[in-house]
């Protein structure tokens, strides 16, 4: 079984540019989550999809962040325009339909905004 796949693994962009991160969950997993870790800080929840619907987006920092999950499969997280404080590692995770504990995380996308 393939794990949760994220790409790119690294991205360096200039302030003001747009970046799109992608997450492919484990096949059949209805729940998809995005988390972010800013350097030296804790990993923080951003949002939760159930299939294609946003179940909880209370952690999204502002309206420069847009998450989508077309058809309930892969998800994208777009940052537009990127700011310096958006730098960090963005993790995606997925879990089966029955909310089960201990998601499967991807290896993350390291975003650097310069």
């Amino acid at each position, binding site marked *: 079984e393939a794990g949760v796949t994220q790409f790119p693994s690294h991205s360096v962009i200039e302030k003001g540019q747009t970046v799109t991160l992608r997450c492919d969950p484990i096949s059949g997993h209805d729940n998809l989550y995005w988390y972010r870790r800013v350097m030296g800080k804790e990993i923080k929840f951003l949002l939760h999809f159930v299939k294609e619907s946003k179940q909880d987006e209370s952690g999204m920092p502002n309206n420069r962040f847009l998450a989508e999950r077309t058809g309930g499969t892969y998800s994208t997280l777009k940052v537009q325009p990127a700011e310096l404080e958006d730098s960090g590692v963005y993790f995606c995770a997925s879990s089966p339909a029955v909310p089960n*504990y201990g998601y499967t995380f991807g290896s993350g996308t390291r975003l650097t905004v310069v």
Partner: protein
Amino acid sequence: AQSVTQPDIHITVSEGASLELRCNYSYGATPYLFWYVQSPGQGLQLLLKYFSGDTLVQGIKGFEAEFKRSQSSFNLRKPSVHWSDAAEYFCAVGEWGTGANNLFFGTGTRLTVIP
């Protein structure tokens, strides 16, 4: 509000020595507790979890953790550390049953293992 404190940012131990990583949480109800590990270039891997029952939980790679409600702690232990255990370790508390399904993480503890 839920929160997790990992007071040790960085710990160095010798290979073969015992290890204890500290975790304290703040949560109103009975927490669901987790330890994750991130090795370089890898994702977050679940080591173990506690939901209820026996307060001593066994995980993968020889790790265990003990839930102590009176101390609001969930410390991770390993009797003999291997060089491959060098990684970053995260404690997390889950907020299930309230309509939310997200985890609250600590800031992580980086473990260095010396020969």
